[in-house]
């Protein structure tokens, strides 16, 4: 096995384990911490794909900003396993059945799907200079439109958050 394969396997194992931790842990704060760990391993995968810019932005935006706000809310609400409302039994059965059905459909759909392997050549698109050039030469309009979208989301948040005078 090459070094890359070993790193890939270790990273994948950690990301799967921590992703399971998100849904299996009883304590919401532990869930959030597991999610942060998952984001880190995914950032590791981006680095393996030679997309360093994406990896760092992923950490800054998700682990550094969004999850802090998550943690904020959860800590202030002080959710605990014992105050969590007890779910009804039939809800659990319904969940299990619909989840199982989804699994069957996915297996059926993916059984015959052909998955051509990607060309393993090294791409340089993930490096920041190339990415910036591509974004601002070929995709200027979509890029600017998405920034307007973000701006409108911000304005919306401010409007909602503003106190009624």
């Amino acid at each position, binding site marked *: 096995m*090459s*070094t890359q394969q070993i790193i890939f396997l270790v990273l994948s194992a950690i990301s799967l384990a921590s992703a399971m931790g998100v849904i299996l842990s009883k*304590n919401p*704060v*532990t869930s959030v*911490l597991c999610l*942060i760990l998952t984001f880190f391993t995914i950032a590791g995968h981006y680095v393996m794909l030679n997309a*360093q*810019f994406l990896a*760092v*932005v992923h*950490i*800054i935006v998700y*682990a*550094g*900003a969004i999850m*802090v706000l998550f*943690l*904020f809310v959860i*800590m*202030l609400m002080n959710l605990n396993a014992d105050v969590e409302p007890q779910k009804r039994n039939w809800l659990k059965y319904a969940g299990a059945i619909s989840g199982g059905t989804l699994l069957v459909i996915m297996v059926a759909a993916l059984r015959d799907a052909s998955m051509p392997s990607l060309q393993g050549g090294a791409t340089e698109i993930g*490096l*920041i*200079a190339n990415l910036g050039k591509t974004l601002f030469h070929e995709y200027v309009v979509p890029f600017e439109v998405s920034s307007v979208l973000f701006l409108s989301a911000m304005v919306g948040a401010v409007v909602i958050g503003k106190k009624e005078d």
Partner: protein
Amino acid sequence: MVIDWVFIVEKLALISGVLALSLGVAMYSTWGERKVAAIIQDRRGPNRAGFMGLLQPLADGGKLFFKEEIIPTNSHRFLFILGPSVAMLVACMTSAVIPWGDVLTIAGRQIPLQVADINIGILYIFGVVSLGVYGIMLGGWASNNKFSLLASVRAASQIISYELALGLSLIALLMFTGSLSLKDIVEQQRHGLWNIVYQPLGFIIFLVCAFAECNRTPFDLPEAENELNGGYHLEYSSMKLGFYLFAEYINMFISSALMASLYFGGYSFPGMDSLGLAPNLVTILGFVALFIKILLFLFFFMWVRWTIPRFRYDQLMRLGWNIMIPLALVNMLITGAIILARQ
């Protein structure tokens, strides 16, 4: 595949060296802080342990190690221990991308005095800084104490608010330098003027935000002892408390190194290339120059702490959102306009 063992040994030595340096500087910053406070308040400061009290940090460290470890009964045990560990880990992580010096040539091998020269150096720093809040938040929440929680919420909102202005001031800098690699930025300053000449406003914004990110006076609201009984580390004792205090000093050291590298030429000094000395000697002199700059910044941190009183919380938030961020945006616009005009 051939593994370059010498490379690994070299990097390991460099990492250990940088780590030992950060810890050593952090340790003696506590001594420096007390001495500076003493001079400003017309006292003597620590002067019993060793010559001029130089052994005082060792005595303090020993005391912290031998204190009783207390984990409150109703705390979340795992997170309570994780908090200071994360604070310490994150504090040490930034040092990886800082260029501590130019290239050393030993036995024909070129050894750059930088752990990793990645082409996203500044973004890496920004990412690590944004993680710094976790140690405080986890510790404050896991203590299961209202005062700790309040302090950690304060700390988190403060750090998030000032991160924005910090990022914007960095954007103006990298618009100007055109590179995200710290090594490139330092090399540019070596052959030209220091960035402080081109980005004076950006530097002031960065400086203020660095104070806020390190939770230093006048922004040390997370540990406002007169309203919060001590702050987010209220329930901590022994070396876990020591880690929190230590992390603050390491953060100060790293921010000083960053400010020196980004705005004050890093390891370069005027007349560096016209000395006519051996390259290795010049590299070592460069490291000494960087260190002197760092020490001056550390002194500045302490000087401010013992001169300026603490802000009120609403003043802190107003300064961050209503003054720092607009200023940083204006700085960005001016930088952009100048770059455009010069093209």
